[in-house]
């Protein structure tokens, strides 16, 4: 790891000014992506601004069906929150299956969204739940937030402070984990709210997380696993790598969608 200068921020405003003062600073949340990247010398920030102690980026609130989650909430904290489980168990179950117990004790919602790994779980949930990503300067709809592989709408120095969404009537997430890395080979989050089904897919798209609109239309007509039997997805729009080619992943999207629809809760 290259040399760096470490700072601790007690709140969002402090983090923003520390970042602005740094030559080439980067936020350090749970470090479960950034530290391995720095160890591999693929990132070399001049300064690290540790936001793990930022008190105004924490907490989960559930008010009837309005949910907010602070960016610094760890995967383990999200998984263990009883209020969230009562209203959106699909999201709790998703958090409980990210990585392994030690990763879940440090990795955070904000870090996962900012990183937008094409195989990460949370981006699919946020897109399907029609969530709003809240930053220190503005609110961004999930539909506009994820812009490509490891790319987001975040500006230089912009800090995610949390997310908010309306809990859907029903939702489910089904993940087909890569047997070695446990990241999603394909993960499908289906939620059914007042405006109908929203289906978001991670791990499979060539451009990262995406909404499967053909599948949404089919499910709008009939909310049943077999409703998507005749939908065909373009294999060329899918990731193709040594773990599975485009046709394999296109099929996996349908299989995981069917399982999610059958598991709607």
């Amino acid at each position, binding site marked *: *790891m*290259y*040399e*760096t*200068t*470490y700072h*601790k921020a007690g709140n969002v405003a402090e983090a923003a000014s520390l970042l602005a003062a740094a030559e080439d600073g980067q936020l*350090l949340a749970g*470090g*479960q992506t950034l*530290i*391995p990247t*720095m*160890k*591999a010398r693929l990132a070399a920030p001049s300064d*690290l601004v*540790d936001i*793990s102690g930022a008190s105004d980026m924490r907490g989960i609130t559930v008010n009837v069906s309005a949910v907010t989650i602070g960016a610094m909430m760890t995967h*383990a904290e999200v998984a263990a929150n009883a209020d969230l489980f009562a209203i959106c168990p699909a999201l709790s179950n998703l958090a409980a299956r990210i*990585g*392994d*117990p*030690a*990763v879940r*004790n*440090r990795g955070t919602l904000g870090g996962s969204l900012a990183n937008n790994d094409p195989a990460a779980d949370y981006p699919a949930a946020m897109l399907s739940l029609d969530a709003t990503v809240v930053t220190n300067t503005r609110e961004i709809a999930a539909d506009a937030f994820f812009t490509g592989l490891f790319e987001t709408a975040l500006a230089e120095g912009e800090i995610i402070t949390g997310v908010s969404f309306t809990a859907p009537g029903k939702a489910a997430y089904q993940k087909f984990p890569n047997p070695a*890395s*446990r990241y999603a080979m394909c993960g499908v989050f289906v939620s059914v709210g007042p405006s109908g089904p929203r289906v978001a897919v991670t791990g499979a798209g060539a451009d990262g997380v995406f909404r499967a609109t053909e599948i949404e239309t089919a499910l709008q007509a009939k909310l049943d696993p077999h409703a998507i039997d005749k939908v065909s997805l373009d294999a060329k729009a899918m990731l193709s790598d040594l773990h599975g080619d485009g046709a394999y992943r296109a099929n996996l999207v349908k299989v995981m969608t069917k399982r999610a629809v059958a598991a709607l809760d």
Partner: protein
Amino acid sequence: MTEVSMTVNGSAVSAKIEDRTLLVDFLRDHLKLTGTHVGCDTSQCGACLVHVNGQAMKSCTMLALSAGGTRVTTIEGVAGDDLHPMQKAFNDNHGLQCGFCTPGMVMSGIDMVTRYKAEGKTLDEAAIRHELEGNICRCTGYHNIVKSIQEAAGKM
């Protein structure tokens, strides 16, 4: 260089370290607590697992400065006059071969048993295998590790 202080295995420690020092390097190189191992560069093997404020964390994926002010427990800190029940169970059930992964396995085992007890959940074989997702062993084939944790769970 920055001053860091924390409590390791019950003792207060402090040192001036480079900001980029990983917690595992602080434990091994500065405190000479070499029971915590480094088995990979990719945060996947769990040989470096320690408890920070009672939670399982990979000490290779955390800066020592981020652990400032915390209570850290390493494999050297789990035994009293006798071995910890988890260590004894690994011994009795042949839960190790080369022993490289064992410190992480024991720390992970203690964490899962404590957590499941606190939540009133049953730690059966399937749950142990799921909880061990972040600990890799190249020798044992896991069967005896699972058996060891299962036996210790009854005694903790």
